[in-house]
């Protein structure tokens, strides 16, 4: 089975090529089917490999060909199959195939149907390369590849200039992080003389703590992760990325691509273990992003924007976990988050589909009677993300909080605050969308229809996963003998980790869990009171004042970047292009034109046509030349 693992990468690529080259000639939903199959087969292969992969199995390194092979740099095109990459592969292909299936329904009447699926397949290909690459450079291929697909898919409706702008913004912001990643790769190469993960891990065992090169290198990698996983200060592209079709938001901008930063940190954990100061920075950035994004989400009225900020916030939470060295916990949250955030986005997509493109929650309301099925899955998603027992989100989030409680009470308090905020904005979203009464005109109401089966089936699958996802990594307390399956599975990866977590007191754990769940439930009731009983609505944008206006305006960060970065760069560009270039023209003009002209004018006077004058000049020149010859003896 492992022998054919290259097919996992190859199938999405073939799907991309077939859909990209021939898609426009195919009829109906064929491209969609091809795309879905091209992702589903890899899922099956990966599943097969997963079941073969026991706890004792060694990581499998498959080497295809040397990509760059010169005297002082070598990088092979090779993949590494180990628990971590296998888990990511399963998430990507599994959720990927569900979303592909969903997209068949969602995109069915779009003229770029085949193009959409070819992009999606290219994305899956790149993402698989990212997680399977056995060295940093192959990871980087995938890293940039997913960035490209993100660009292409955000700007999928390319006739709209704004979408194009959002797409470019995403790509450019990612590129800032990519520069950091490249710098990190080079530094690690010059330090270890290899960029293979396995080899580096072996070498890293002999490296001192807080080695300056390692600190800078990990910092560089973290910058890369910031760009890709939308953390402060490079997060602004993610909300804008919602310009793309909703399945894209679900697949790329919630479930998979944005977790690449977390994957990178987990993959390179043996380096981060050596740089505690960078790990601290990771958790600070994470917690700041988490709270910041959660606050912004409180005042957003676009259903997808709320979810986007929620994603940023959750990613921040994962970074906090990474920052304290709880890699398994972070990976667990990546997994469950992939389930319920994909579910929420797809559910939102279903809502939008039902309302024919309406995205503003102020124009929704009372939809639970109109689209029941969607309501139920959305409810499950909401409860999962808020951390209601026994849904998956509760386990992963609780694990993070437990770890934080042990490591740092301050971080714990802030994270708790952040996850409570999650509950606030999610319940607000849920109540405003599905409860109360429909707020737009009746004419539109009559047109509301439930999404087709091809869309609902993936939703239900995801809903089931969201509910039972917690089983993957039950805490010892509940799971008993079969506790922490995922942690066990991933254990070989982190066996070197010096920051491995210990089990804490059971009573305290229960107490913490109960505290969180209790608070969330209270928040749920309070919000139900506000939004459903009293039917209070978000105020129109115009009437917002003070802090509220600032929050609704996302703290003006976009505008800030615009004035601090974009405009000066454009100004400098114009200044260079017009002023400096013409100054160069002026200088060269001075030398070439004015200089030669004046020299010519003065020399012209010598040219008076008088033979005698010429003769004297000639003799004089000969004299001068001879004197020179006489003086300069070479």
């Amino acid at each position, binding site marked *: 089975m492992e022998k054919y693992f290259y097919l996992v990468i190859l199938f999405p690529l073939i799907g991309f090529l077939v859909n990209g080259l021939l898609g426009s000639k195919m009829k109906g939903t064929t491209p969609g089917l091809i795309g879905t199959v091209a992702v589903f087969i890899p899922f099956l292969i990966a599943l097969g490999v997963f079941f073969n992969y026991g706890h004792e199995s060694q990581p499998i390194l498959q080497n295809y060909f040397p990509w760059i092979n010169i005297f002082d740099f070598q990088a092979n095109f090779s993949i590494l199959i180990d628990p971590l990459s296998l888990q990511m592969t399963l998430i990507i292909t599994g959720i990927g195939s569900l979303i592909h299936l969903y997209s068949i329904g969602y995109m069915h009447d779009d003229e770029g149907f085949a193009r959409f699926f070819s992009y999606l397949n290219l994305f899956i290909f790149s993402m698989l390369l990212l997680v399977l690459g056995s060295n940093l450079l192959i990871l980087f291929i995938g890293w940039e590849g997913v960035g490209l697909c993100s660009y292409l898919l955000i700007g999928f409706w390319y006739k709209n200039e704004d979408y194009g702008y959002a797409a470019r913004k995403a790509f450019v912001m990612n590129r800032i992080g990519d520069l950091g990643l490249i710098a990190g790769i080079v530094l690690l190469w010059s330090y270890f003389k290899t960029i293979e993960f396995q080899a580096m891990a072996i070498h890293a065992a002999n490296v001192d703590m807080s080695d300056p090169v390692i600190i800078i290198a990990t910092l560089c990698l973290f910058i890369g992760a910031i760009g890709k996983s939308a953390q402060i200060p490079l997060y602004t592209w993610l909300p804008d990325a919602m310009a793309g079709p909703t399945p894209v938001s679900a697949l790329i901008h919630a479930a998979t691509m944005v977790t690449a930063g977390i994957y990178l940190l987990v993959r390179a954990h043996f380096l981060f273990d050596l740089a505690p100061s960078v790990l601290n920075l990771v958790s600070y950035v994470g917690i700041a992003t988490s709270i910041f994004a959660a606050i912004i989400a409180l005042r957003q009225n676009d259903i997808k924007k709320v979810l986007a900020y929620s994603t940023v916030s959750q990613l921040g939470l994962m970074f906090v976990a990474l920052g304290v060295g709880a890699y398994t916990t972070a990976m667990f949250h990546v997994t469950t988050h992939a389930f319920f955030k994909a579910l929420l986005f797809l559910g939102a997509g279903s809502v939008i589909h039902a309302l024919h493109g309406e995205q503003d929650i102020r124009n929704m309301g009372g939809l639970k009677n109109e689209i029941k099925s969607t309501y139920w899955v959305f409810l499950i998603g909401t409860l999962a993300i808020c951390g209601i027992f026994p849904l998956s989100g509760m386990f992963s989030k609780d694990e993070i909080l437990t770890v934080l409680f042990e490591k740092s009470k301050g971080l714990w308090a802030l994270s708790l605050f952040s996850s409570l905020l999650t509950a606030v904005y999610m319940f607000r979203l849920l109540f405003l969308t599905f409860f109360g009464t429909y707020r737009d005109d009746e004419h539109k109401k009559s047109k509301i229809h439930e999404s087709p089966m091809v869309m609902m089936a993936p939703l239900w699958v995801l809903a089931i996963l969201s509910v039972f996802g917690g089983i993957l990594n039950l805490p010892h307390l509940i799971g008993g003998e079969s506790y922490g399956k995922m942690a066990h599975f991933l254990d070989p990866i982190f066996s070197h980790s010096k920051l491995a977590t210990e089990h804490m007191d059971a009573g305290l754990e229960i107490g913490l869990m109960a505290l969180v769940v209790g608070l969330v439930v209270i928040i749920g009731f309070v919000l139900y009171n506000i939004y459903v009983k009293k039917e209070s609505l978000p105020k129109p944008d115009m009437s917002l004042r003070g802090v509220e206006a600032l929050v609704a305006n996302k703290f003006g960060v976009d505008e800030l970047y615009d004035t601090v970065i974009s405009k000066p760069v454009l100004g400098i560009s114009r200044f260079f292009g017009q002023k400096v270039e013409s100054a160069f023209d002026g200088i060269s003009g001075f030398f070439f034109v004015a200089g030669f002209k004046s020299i010519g004018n003065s020399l012209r006077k010598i*040219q*008076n*046509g*008088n*033979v*005698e004058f*010429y*003769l*004297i000049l000639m*003799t004089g020149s000969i004299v001068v030349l001879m004197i020179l010859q006489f003086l300069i003896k070479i």
Partner: protein
Amino acid sequence: MLMQINHIVPIEHIITLSCILFCIGVMGVLLRRNAIIILMCIELMLNAVNILFATFSAYNGNPDGQIFVFFIMVVAAAEVAVGLALLVLIYRNTRSVDVSLLDRLKW
């Protein structure tokens, strides 16, 4: 009749003589406006060089230098013939042999 001048006169002196004659020729070219005199001064310069050739030939025992002198004379003769013909032409056109009248050497 055959003598050994190289035992008597240092070669530097003959070279200096040649230089002086040459420079007198140059001076003549520069000072005079009469084209005929200028032509004559050129002949003087040629002769100064001839002395040099003959001297080196004699001092090195190599006849090539004298052959060169012979060729220079040949060229000088041809040059004078053409030069004087040109002079006559100039005179016919300008009624003068003053070279400063010839100031058309510019565009």
